[in-house]
Structure formats: C-alpha cells, structure tokens
C-alpha cells in the first residue's frame, strides 16, 4: 500500500459537523456511540479492510465510531482507518480508560498535538474506585486544556453530561505550545521551530504532525514539499514524557489494594493453573458450540425450518413456474440449487454456527481472557511461524474456515497470513465437517480415533514448520496489552455478535451462492463425472478405498461436509473409514473458502493452497494406509 489514498466518507454521511469517537481498544466507545446516536445507525465497510464503521445522527451532526487504537499512525488497518476519521473530524470525543491513564493519555496527547477540538470522557471510573486510585479531575482538565467528564458508561453514568459537553469542546495544550518549553531539551526546541515552519505550508496542524511523525500516506500527499525531517521517535519520546508528567501530577495509587480480578488474571497466566483453566474453557466451548449449537439449534434451523419446510416450498414455486427438469430449474432449485441448497447452507447451518462462535469470541474478548490465551499459546504458535494472536483465526476455523480466513487480516505480516490461511485450508476441519466426522468416528475403536487425531495434528505442525522454514522474512513478535479481567456486558456482547454475523453473511453469502451455481454447471456439463473417473486410480490403488469413494472427494470440493457425508453411504472397514476421514479432512477447502482465499490473497496463492492440499491429503492418507493397515 503505497498510494496516497485517504478514505472518501460516504456522501450521505457528509454533514456540517462530524463528531468522531476515538480511544484505545476496549474502553467502551461503542456504548457512547449507541447513547449518542440512538437507533438509526448505519454500518459501512471500510474499503479493503474488515473494519466496519458505525455512523449515526445526533441532531445535525453525524457521529462516527472508530476502531480502537493506541495512537494515530499507519501501523495497521485499524490505525489507518482511525487516522482518516480523526483527521477529518470537527469534534473528537476521546474516550479514555481512567484505570489506564498512562497508556490512554498517549493518544489523548497526540490528538491535542494535532490541534483537534475535543473533549475527554474519562470512562470506567468504577474500576478506578475499585482499585483505590484517585484522579484529580480538575488538575487533569487544567493540564490537558480541554473538558474532562468522568463517566461509567457500562452503568449509564455520566453519558448525558458528555452529550451536553460536546458544545464545550475546544483545543487543548499541545507539546508544541510554548507553555511546556522548559521541560524539553534544546533538541526538541529545534523540532518545535521546524513544526511551526512546516505548519505554515500545510492545510492544518494535524497534517503537519503526521508529516513529522513519518506517516507515509500523509507524506505522499505532500510530495511537493522539500525534504521533511523524521522526528517520530523524538516526538513520541517528548509526548511520553509529557504524559508521564501529567499522570504523576493527577494520579495517586494505593498499590497494595488486593483485588479479585487481578488475582484471576494472574491465575490465567500461571502455567500450573492456566492449563487446567484453558481445558475447562475448551470443554465448555465444545459443549456450547459442538453440542448445543451444532446439534440442537442446527437440528431445528437446518432440518426442520429449511430442509423440511423452506426447500419443498421453494421447489414447489419453481416447478410450477419454470419447471425443475431444465437447466434454469436445476440452477435455482436442484440438488445444488442457489435458492435451495445455498440458502439452507448459509442460513440453516452456517448462520447459527457463526453467530455462536462470534458470541463466544465476544465474551472472551470483552472479559479480557482472549489476549491471555494468546500469551499462553504464543510459544507453540511461534514454532510454526505465527504468534499468539493467530489463536483467534485458528479457533474460528473450527466454526467456519471461510469466516476464519477473513479474520486472518488481524495478523501482523503477509507471511503470517499466508501460513495461517494455508493451515486453515489444510488441517482445520470446520464445524459442518466435524459434525459428520464425529458421527463416523464414533463407531470406531479408540485406536482409530487416536490415529486420526495424531495424523491431522502431525500434518498441521509439519506443514506449519515447513512454511516457516521456506517462506522468506520473519514473522512479527507478540506485543499485546492485557486488559483487566472483567465481567462482559451482555448487551455489548450481543450487539457485537450481531454486527459481525451480519458482516459475515454479507461477505460470504454471495460466494456460497456462486459456488452452488458453479457445481450445477459442472454437473450439467459432465465435468463432475469426469473428475470422479479420473480420480479412481488414486482412491483404489493408493488409498485402498472402494471406487465409489471418489465421489465423496469430488463432493468434498464443493462442501467439506458433503464429502464426509458421502462416505456414510459406502460400506467401509474401520481402517478404510480412518484413511478416508484423514484424507478428506486434509483435502481441499470448500469452494466458498477458496473464493475468499482468492479475494483475500490472490489467485496464484489460492491455487497453490488448493493443489498443496490435494498432494498433502493423498500422501498422508496413503502413508497411513501403508503404515498402519
């Protein structure tokens, strides 16, 4: 990304006054957003990212909620998006976690340095009281030079005061103002001089600051300006000093205050207690997703609502209008019909699973446990070229590989994304497939189950290690903030789940429809039968399976669970079931996941992944067949 583009905010959202909510991650910005805007909210995707920006009206002004960031810059998508909104804002409501002032005020000070008109909502005052911290709010207000309003948004305290204070927003004390000159060394005085000179040539102070902070996107908009000095580190250091000076003045702690959440947080990271806790959590996740959602809920939505009620109804309409025995009828309501199978698959099967996964993920995220799991898993994931953060797409992969592939965007480097996407496509069975696999494997002895699990795990580790060795470059290291452990707010969890689920359906839905259409075409043209026949030598001779099993593999190309389900129709010995399941699990990702991979990476890489899966699946299946049986 070396273009100068900044986002174009939708025309319909252009207003006389743009109010932007800005703050670090997990400080409660969305609660403010919901309070200020009420129910008429629109969510729009920020082009080229997973990031959705909510916007809504407050009187004549439009309010935007931005992604949580620790500073304004261009380190990742979140920062670039937040930067563009912040720079175009007329008024900023900076939400600050009062129990993490030292961290949060860095962003606040940066906004002040940009000369933004703003107010500060000092949120989570309840945490501050619980932790026996005291904050001199008047002193803080005087130091910052902008209104500071104490709030506890989760308990609805102070929100109305923030709303009223928006009119009192003003510009505050920048580190480039003369007031703090005595605190800085001579070197910084020179920077200030350059800042003032440069400021005469730019459109506004925010641009000036970003130019000196080496922001490549902003710099390339000013490429006519002669050389601009690189002062990011000097400015960051001065800002950090200023923030430390402010906090030293306004904060006082009672360090020794014993506190339950803190202790729980510590237990989640002490290996002796952390491992059993994680196992209990995994068991609960399995019970919720694997048993409750995948069986009970999907049993109702997929079977009762869609297969038994919706599909016959749809087929009835099509057969009485277009007819089912022609190509269009097949395309719409045939075996892989886009109005029958695709709809059932998206809404009956995937929707409950994806919603279930996002619900759990939101709870883990809001409770502060997720970053701790990332810390626990970091060492293992480092060995396959990933870091602890990759645990999120890996967990989601068990729900839906397509959904997980989208979330690999949160990984730090291109290299990590390639590794994660390949491993997801190769060795993580999605929930739809897991359901069928569990049914087949349940009839087998423990020995076969162990062979299956070990084979998949071995391939996962070997493939990851291999990619880590051959891919050039180095993966990024873990550097994350551990938020305090807190009880998640149900309303917030539900609204996050809703937003993410809707985003998933919007993004992946059309792709499932396209995939279904593609298969109908393949079948109508005889391509499907051709592939089945061509694959026979491999299935029979190398894997030791009956010839019909080839059909199961071809089905697996379409939807992974189809493949596994295709096996139930064939009489197989336990050894054959094991080999077939291993091969199928490792086999190509479904068509929707493939299309997302093309979209997320590019066609070439997706094809590599696709053929890589073929080769890995058949080699592993054949080896297991030779070695054990």
């Amino acid at each position: 990304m070396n273009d100068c583009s900044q986002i174009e905010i939708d025309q319909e959202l252009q207003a006389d006054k743009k109010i932007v909510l800005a703050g670090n991650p997990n400080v409660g910005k969305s609660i403010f957003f919901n309070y200020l805007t009420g129910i008429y909210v629109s969510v729009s995707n920020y082009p080229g990212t997973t990031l959705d920006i909510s916007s809504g009206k407050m009187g004549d002004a439009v309010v935007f909620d931005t992604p949580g960031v620790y500073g304004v810059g261009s380190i990742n998508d979140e920062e670039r998006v937040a930067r563009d909104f912040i720079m175009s804002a007329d008024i900023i409501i900076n939400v600050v976690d009062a129990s993490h002032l030292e961290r949060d005020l860095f962003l606040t000070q940066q906004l002040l340095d940009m000369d933004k008109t703003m107010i500060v909502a000092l949120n989570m005052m309840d945490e501050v009281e619980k932790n026996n911290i005291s904050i001199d709010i008047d002193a803080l207000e005087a130091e910052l030079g902008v209104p500071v309003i104490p709030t506890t948004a989760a308990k609805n305290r102070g929100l109305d005061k923030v709303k009223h204070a928006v009119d009192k927003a003003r510009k505050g004390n920048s580190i480039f103002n003369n007031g703090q000159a005595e605190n800085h060394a001579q070197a910084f005085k020179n920077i200030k001089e350059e800042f003032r000179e440069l400021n005469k040539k730019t459109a506004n102070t925010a641009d000036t600051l970003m130019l000196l902070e080496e922001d490549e996107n902003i710099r390339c908009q000013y490429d006519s300006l002669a050389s601009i000095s690189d002062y990011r580190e000097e400015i960051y250091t001065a800002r950090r000093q200023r923030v430390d000076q402010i906090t030293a003045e306004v904060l006082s702690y009672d360090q020794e205050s014993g506190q339950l959440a803190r202790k729980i947080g510590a237990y989640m990271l002490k290996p002796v207690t952390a491992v059993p806790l994680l196992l209990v959590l995994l068991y609960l996740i399995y019970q919720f997703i694997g048993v409750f959602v995948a069986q009970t809920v999907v049993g109702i939505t997929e079977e009762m609502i869609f297969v038994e009620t919706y599909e016959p109804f749809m087929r009835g309409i099509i057969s009485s209008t277009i007819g089912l025995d022609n190509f269009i009828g097949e395309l719409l309501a045939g075996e892989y019909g886009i109005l029958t199978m695709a709809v059932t698959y998206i809404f009956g099967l995937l929707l409950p699973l994806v919603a279930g996964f996002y619900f759990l993920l939101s709870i883990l995220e809001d409770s502060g446990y997720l970053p701790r799991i990332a810390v626990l898993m970091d060492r293992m994931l480092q060995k396959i070229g990933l870091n602890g953060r990759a645990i999120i797409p890996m967990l989601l992969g068990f729900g839906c590989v397509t959904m997980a592939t989208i979330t690999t965007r949160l990984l730090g480097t291109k290299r990590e994304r390639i590794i994660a996407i390949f491993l997801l496509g190769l060795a993580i069975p999605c929930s739809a497939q897991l359901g069928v696999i569990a049914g087949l494997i349940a009839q087998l002895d423990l020995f076969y189950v162990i062979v299956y699990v070990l084979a998949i795990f071995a391939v996962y580790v070997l493939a990851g290690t291999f990619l880590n060795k051959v891919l050039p470059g180095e993966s990024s290291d873990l550097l994350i903030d551990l938020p305090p452990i807190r009880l998640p707010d149900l309303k917030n969890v539900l609204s996050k789940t809703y937003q993410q689920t809707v985003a998933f359906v919007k993004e992946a839905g059309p792709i499932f429809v396209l995939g279904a259409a593609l298969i109908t075409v393949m079948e109508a043209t005889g391509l499907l039968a051709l592939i089945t026949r061509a694959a026979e030598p491999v299935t029979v001779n190398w894997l030791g399976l009956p010839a019909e099993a080839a059909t199961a593999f071809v089905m697996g190309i379409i939807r992974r669970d189809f493949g596994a389900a295709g096996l139930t129709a064939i009489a197989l010995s336990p050894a054959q079931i094991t080999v077939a399941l291993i091969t199928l699990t490792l086999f190509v990702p479904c068509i929707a996941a493939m299309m997302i991979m093309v979209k997320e990476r590019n066609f070439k890489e997706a094809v590599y992944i696709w053929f890589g899966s073929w080769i890995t699946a058949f080699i592993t299946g054949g080896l297991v067949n030779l070695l054990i049986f």
Partner: protein
Amino acid sequence: MTLVDMKNGHKFIIDKIDDKQTRLQALRFGISEGSEIECAGSMPGGPVILKKNLQEIAIGRRTAEKISVKKKGMV
C-alpha cells in the same frame, strides 16, 4: 541482563530497547528507556509479562531478548 531473565515480582529499570519499531510501540504503551517496571510473570520459553502500575503488557520472547534491563539502584 535482558527481560527474559526477569521472574515474577522482580522490579527493574528498562535500560535499552534496540529495535526501533519495538521502541515506538512500547512508548505508546507507556514503557520507555528509563521506566521502572515490574515483571508480572513469564511463560517458560514464551512471552514475558510486564506491569507498570495497573497496566500489563505481554512481550514476545524474541523482542524481550532485545530489551536490556538493570536492577533498581544500579547505575
């Protein structure tokens, strides 16, 4: 001495952060050369957890090895 040598409960001062990106990121989180930090845990072979007042951050092993520290009181 680097960060990886720190055990839970150790208090120390950050002496030098070699990598520029890490230095900038750490500045945002409130940790800079010269700050007083407490170690709040360390995964065997994995990340080190740092604590400054109520703020906790986890730093990957490779980065932690590049951050040198000195004991409080040492010059």
